[in-house]
C-alpha cells in the first residue's frame, strides 16, 4: 500500500506531468514525421530528450515542493524509514519512464507502419540506453531536490551539466598535447558523472570495435555499461537517502 501510494504520487502530484508525457510523445512523433530519420539519428534524439530532459522535467521539485510547502513535515513523522520515501519515489519515476519509452516505441511503430519510410533499426537499444540515462539523471536530480527548495533541482542540474560539457570540452581541446592528463580526466568524468558518453556509445554500438561482439555490439562492454549506469544510480540514490535521513525540517513555509 505504502509503495503503491508513493509510486502513484510521482505521477499524480502535478497536472503538468501528464502534459509533459504527452508533449514528449508528440515531439518524438513530430520529429519522425518531419525528418524521417534513420535508426541512430532518432535514437540520439530520444536519448537526449527522453533520457535527460524528461528526467529533469519529471523530477523537478519531487522533494523540494514538499519541503517548500511544509508537507514534508507530516511525511517524515510517519513511522517508516525515510529511505523508503526516496526509493519508492525514484521507482515511481523509473516506472513512468519505462512506460513512456514503451509508448514512444508504439508511436514510432505506428508512424513507421503508415509512412513506410525511415528506419527503426537499433531503436529498442536506444530506448533502453535512454531509460538507463533517465534513471541516473533522475536519481541525481532527486538527491539534489532533498537540499534545494521548490523545483530548482532540475534547473540547477541543467545549468551544471551544460556548463560542465562546455568546460570539459574546452579543457579537452587544450589538453590534447597532455595525453596522460586528458586520459585521467576522461576516466574521471566517465566513471563519476552521469554516463552520457558511455551509454551513447553503448547504444550506438561503438564499443563493439574493441572486444568480443554479439552482432555489432561488445557483450562484455555493453554489460559493463549497463552495470556501471545502475551503480551510478544507486550511488546517487544513497547520497540522497543519507541527506534525507540527516536533514532537519522546518514547519515554516517558504
Amino acid at each position, binding site marked *: *500500500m*505504502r509503495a503503491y501510494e508513493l509510486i502513484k504520487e510521482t505521477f499524480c502530484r502535478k497536472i503538468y506531468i501528464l502534459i509533459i508525457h504527452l508533449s514528449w510523445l508528440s515531439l518524438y512523433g513530430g520529429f519522425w514525421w518531419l525528418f524521417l530519420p534513420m535508426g541512430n539519428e532518432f535514437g540520439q534524439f530520444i536519448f537526449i530528450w527522453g533520457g535527460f530532459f524528461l528526467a529533469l522535467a519529471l523530477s523537478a521539485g519531487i522533494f523540494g515542493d514538499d519541503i517548500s510547502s511544509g508537507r514534508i513535515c*507530516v511525511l*517524515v*513523522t*510517519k513511522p517508516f524509514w525515510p529511505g523508503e520515501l526516496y526509493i519508492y519515489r525514484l521507482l515511481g519515476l523509473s516506472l513512468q519512464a519505462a512506460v513512456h519509452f514503451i509508448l514512444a516505441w508504439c508511436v514510432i511503430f505506428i508512424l513507421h507502419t503508415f509512412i513506410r519510410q525511415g528506419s527503426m533499426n537499433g531503436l529498442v537499444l536506444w530506448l533502453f540506453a535512454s531509460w538507463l540515462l533517465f534513471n541516473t539523471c533522475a536519481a541525481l536530480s532527486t538527491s539534489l531536490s532533498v537540499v534545494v527548495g521548490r523545483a530548482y533541482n532540475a534547473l540547477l542540474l541543467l545549468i551544471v551539466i551544460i556548463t560542465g560539457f562546455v568546460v570539459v570540452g574546452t579543457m579537452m581541446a587544450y589538453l590534447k598535447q597532455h595525453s596522460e592528463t586528458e586520459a585521467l580526466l576522461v576516466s574521471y568524468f566517465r566513471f563519476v558523472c552521469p554516463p552520457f558518453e558511455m551509454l551513447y556509445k553503448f547504444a550506438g554500438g561503438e564499443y563493439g570495435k574493441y572486444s568480443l561482439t554479439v552482432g555489432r555490439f561488445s557483450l562484455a562492454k555493453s554489460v559493463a555499461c549497463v552495470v556501471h549506469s545502475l551503480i551510478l544510480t544507486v550511488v546517487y540514490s544513497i547520497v540522497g537517502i543519507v541527506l534525507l535521513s540527516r536533514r*532537519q525540517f522546518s*514547519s515554516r513555509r517558504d
Partner: protein
Amino acid sequence: MRKMIDNDNKQTAVIECKQLTKVYKGLLTGRSKAVCALKNISLSVSKGQIIGLIGPNGAGKSTFLNLMAGLIFPTEGCLTVCGSPARSVEARCGLGYMPEHPSFLGRYSARAVLRYHGALLGLSRKTISLQADKSIEQLQMEEFIDRPCSDFSQGMKQRLALAIALMNDPQVLLLDEPSNGLDPVGIIRLRDVLKKLRDSGTAIVISSHRLGELEKLTSDYIFLYRGEVVSLGDRIVTGQAGRLRVELVSNGNDIAEKLLSPSKILGVSDTELEIAVNDPEEVPDIVSNLAKGGARITGVLLQRENIEDIFLRLYNERN
C-alpha cells in the same frame, strides 16, 4: 505552582526531556550568528494530559514542537516520545502531528489524502476506510471529502490535517495552532474531539496564541520565554491565583497601610482595595482580618487570574 516532573506521573510519562538544548548554527541558515532557541529544558508529559505551550513570538514553541515531532535534532540533552528517542520509528508509531499551515497535494481529494496518509502509516485498506469514516463524522468533513484540496479553505485544511494526525490513534498528539481558520462550530467540535482523546489517555501538546481557547481545554501550561521554561521545573496552573476586590465605606488607604503587606496590594483607593491572592482559601482570613482591623466592608469579589492575566504578568515581569 506545581512541581513539573512529578514522580507519580513518571510511570505514565509519554514525553520526557532532560537538559534539552537546541542551537541553530549560523552556517547555511542565513543567520549571522548561532541562535539558542531552547536552553536546558527538562520536563515530562503524562498520558491523558493536555498541555498548552504558550509564550511570545520567538520564545521557542515551534522549536520545541519540532523537536518532539522529530523534525529537528537536539543540540544537547535527550528527548523521548512514547519511551523511544524522538525521530525513531518506534516513537513515530505513537505520534500524531498537525502543522500550523497544513498543505496537501492540490489534485487529491480529502478522501485520497486520508488514503495516502493511511497507507504511509501502514494501515490496511479496511482500517483506512473505517478511520476516514470516523473522521468525516467527528470533524464534519462530509461536504468536502470528495473535493480536490486545491479548493479548500483554511478551516477545511485544518480539519483534514487533524484527521490525518488522528489516523493512527496516537498516544501523543502535537498540534500547532489547531483552531486557525476554524469557524465557531469547528472550534467546538475540535474541543470535543480533544477532550475525548484526553479521556482515552492521549497526551496532547498544543502550541497556540489563542489563550481563551486553550483555557477551555486545559489548566496546564508551559510558558516559554526566550528558549527557557519560565520558573524552570514548575507548571502554571490557572484557577488558583487571583485578585480580591474589597469595597469599603471609606478609609481604604489607611486600612491598606495598616493591615496589608505592600506586596499584596494591587490597587487602592478610599473606597476600594485590590489584593493579590495566591489561593482562594486565603480569602476568608483576609476578609476577617480587615473586618477586625476596623474596615467597614460593603462588598467582596474574587477575580481569579485567567491564562491571559498570567501570560501578561509573566511577560511583563520579564520585560
